[in-house]
């Protein structure tokens, strides 16, 4: 166990931090599950934080000049490089503190990116930052496609999903590849903390963010972020889908602390994936056969996590 985590008791529903890192008036869509997740992330982090955003929905909707939704210091440089920008911020704080130019007080450095910024275009920058061991948290808000540019497929788009660049047709079922497993790639960097989270389980999400911030060195939290606009789902259902993804084993919640897998929520009576897929326009073209395949693969992937938890 990591010593800095031992004292952490966790947040409680009764005593949530009042402070908001983000202000109302941001331009997020109705029912945006991503900004909801981001709100929870910021609530867990508090005031002593510097946020480095990748280009994407969250960057656009929070920074319409001359306004900003951010109540904490925030920087956006480009799409792929949030982890490198965070490396620079963290290194600056380190050297300035050492030289007595900054108070000793700890400031969390957090990079935030979508699934495209994290798993596709920005993967190298994160890999570099993690390999170098910067004390930072990288948060991926995964809404499973390039939503900001108009719902194009990413490496994190799930199998079978319809996007504007993975359209189903006579010769295609939509996205033909299985969702890229970004958390596992991060685990391979041997960083002290990796976790997956869902805004439906808000205390779990906030606790994981807090732990990620508390550990020394790089930490990664992958957050499932429903997007009603891109998924063709109803805005009021965003938290419901975030919950269903966990209950159907589509998005398993777990932590990897110093290489040890811990399943956060073991799903003993899973709901069928069909329950998760229905009501999302991106999946409505799928046949029974397609859904059966997805069910089989989801079960297999979930088993892998359980086995890793046993092994480690």
């Amino acid at each position, binding site marked *: 166990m990591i010593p800095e985590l031992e004292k952490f008791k966790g947040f409680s529903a009764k005593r949530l931090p009042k402070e908001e890192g983000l202000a109302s008036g941001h331009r997020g869509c109705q029912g945006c599950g991503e900004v909801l997740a981001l709100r929870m992330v910021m609530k867990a982090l508090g005031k002593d934080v510097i946020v480095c955003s990748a280009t994407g929905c969250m960057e656009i909707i929070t920074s319409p*000049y001359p306004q900003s939704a951010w109540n904490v210091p925030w920087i956006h440089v480009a799409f792929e490089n949030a982890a490198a920008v965070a490396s620079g911020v963290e290194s600056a704080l380190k050297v300035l503190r050492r030289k007595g130019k900054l108070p000793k007080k700890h400031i969390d450095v957090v990079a935030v990116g979508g699934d495209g910024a994290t798993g596709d275009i920005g993967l190298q920058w994160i890999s570099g930052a993690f390999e*170098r061991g910067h004390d930072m948290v990288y948060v991926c808000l995964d809404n499973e496609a390039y939503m900001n540019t108009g719902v194009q497929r990413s490496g994190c788009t799930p199998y079978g999903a319809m996007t504007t660049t993975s359209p189903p047709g006579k010769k295609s079922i939509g996205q033909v590849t299985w969702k890229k497993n970004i958390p596992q790639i991060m685990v391979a960097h041997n960083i002290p903390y990796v976790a997956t989270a869902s805004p439906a389980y808000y205390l779990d999400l906030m606790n994981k963010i807090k732990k990620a911030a508390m550990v020394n060195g790089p930490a990664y939290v992958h957050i499932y972020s429903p997007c009603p606009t891109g998924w063709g789902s109803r805005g009021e259902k965003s938290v419901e889908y975030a919950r269903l993804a966990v209950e159907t084993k589509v998005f398993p919640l777990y932590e990897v602390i110093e290489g040890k897998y811990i399943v956060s929520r073991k799903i003993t009576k899973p709901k069928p994936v069909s329950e998760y897929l229905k009501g999302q326009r991106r999946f409505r073209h799928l046949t029974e056969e397609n859904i059966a395949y997805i069910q089989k693969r989801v079960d297999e992937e979930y088993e892998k996590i359980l086995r890793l938890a046993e092994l480690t």
Partner: protein
Amino acid sequence: MAKRVGIEVSIAIAEAVKLAQAEVVAAYPITPQTHIVEHLSELVADGELDAEFIPVESEHAALSTCCGSVAAGARTYTATSSQGLMLMSEVLYVASGMRLPIVMTVANRALSAPISIWNDHQDIMTQRDCGWIQTFAENGQEAVDLTLHAFRVAEDRKVSLPMIVNIDGFTLSHVIEPIELPDQADVDRYLPPFKPKYKLDPKKPISMGPVGIPEVYTEARMAHDQAIKNAKRWIIKAWDEFEEVFGRRYNPVEEYRTEDAEIVLVTMGSISETAMTAVDKMRDEGKKVGLLKIRLWRPFPGPEFRKAAKGAKVLAVVDRTLAPGASSGPVGEELRTVFYKVPGAPKIFNFIAGLGGRDVTVERFEEMVDKAASYAKKRPKELYEVIGVREK
């Protein structure tokens, strides 16, 4: 006392960065920039420079990291070349637009294809419009002095723009020259600690890098353009102060034997040294030839150049970049614009020379001067000419 030592120019630049007390250095190795960052990593490893040396995974990450560190309030330095500069190109524009005062050395090198590690100016000319202040060094002493000057200017709150010091790859970066390394006390007198007006600070949260809708984008670009143009007076003032502290004088455009010169060569960077030798030779032969060396490339010192070129009948402008399909080289174009419809303006002829490490010899400069003289009588077909190119 400042000491004069025989030292490789790259090492001397690293020593200048140490004298400037840079706090974050993020860099990725690329020939011919490597010796600068190797030496900096040594200085940090030996505890001679109290800085974070970040060995990043690419040039794009190098400059991205620099954006983060300078925004958080640390004095920041990087160096690159050629393909590396191209890879970080996206971030160059962001850094200047966000007014982040990073200092960077570019060891100028050719661009692929074919791949070439040798010197010309094709890398930096692709970044002509990136909104950074840019100077060119001619020798090792200048490389050191301009590095200190760059920190002084970039971090000045009245400027607050990133700055590139260009040095020619190999022909300057890898040569050993006698260089006077300034005293720490003098450098401290010249270069105050970095105190940015705005930085990332939880005590006073600001947002950097927001979205600019069409209603605001033009104004943002205009503000940037005015900022770099206004920077010229602070660039010159910082050279005035440099002279007071260190006794060496720098100007936006340097003149060499231009008094009564009819034909004036125009150069940038280390070939200026050969050009001076060529001018001396031609002067000895009685030819009225002079030389103008562009030290400040961005913002371009138009009025200073016109003043320096006063009286010249012909300008033989050397570009070390071939811009395929363009009307002429970038320096040639710049000067034609600067002299457009100016009464008594000299005739301008543009020569492309010294690509991909090819030497520009004294003879080549003589050839350019002779050609410019004859073109002044009979206009050539093309607006530029590639010097020393073989046909078969």
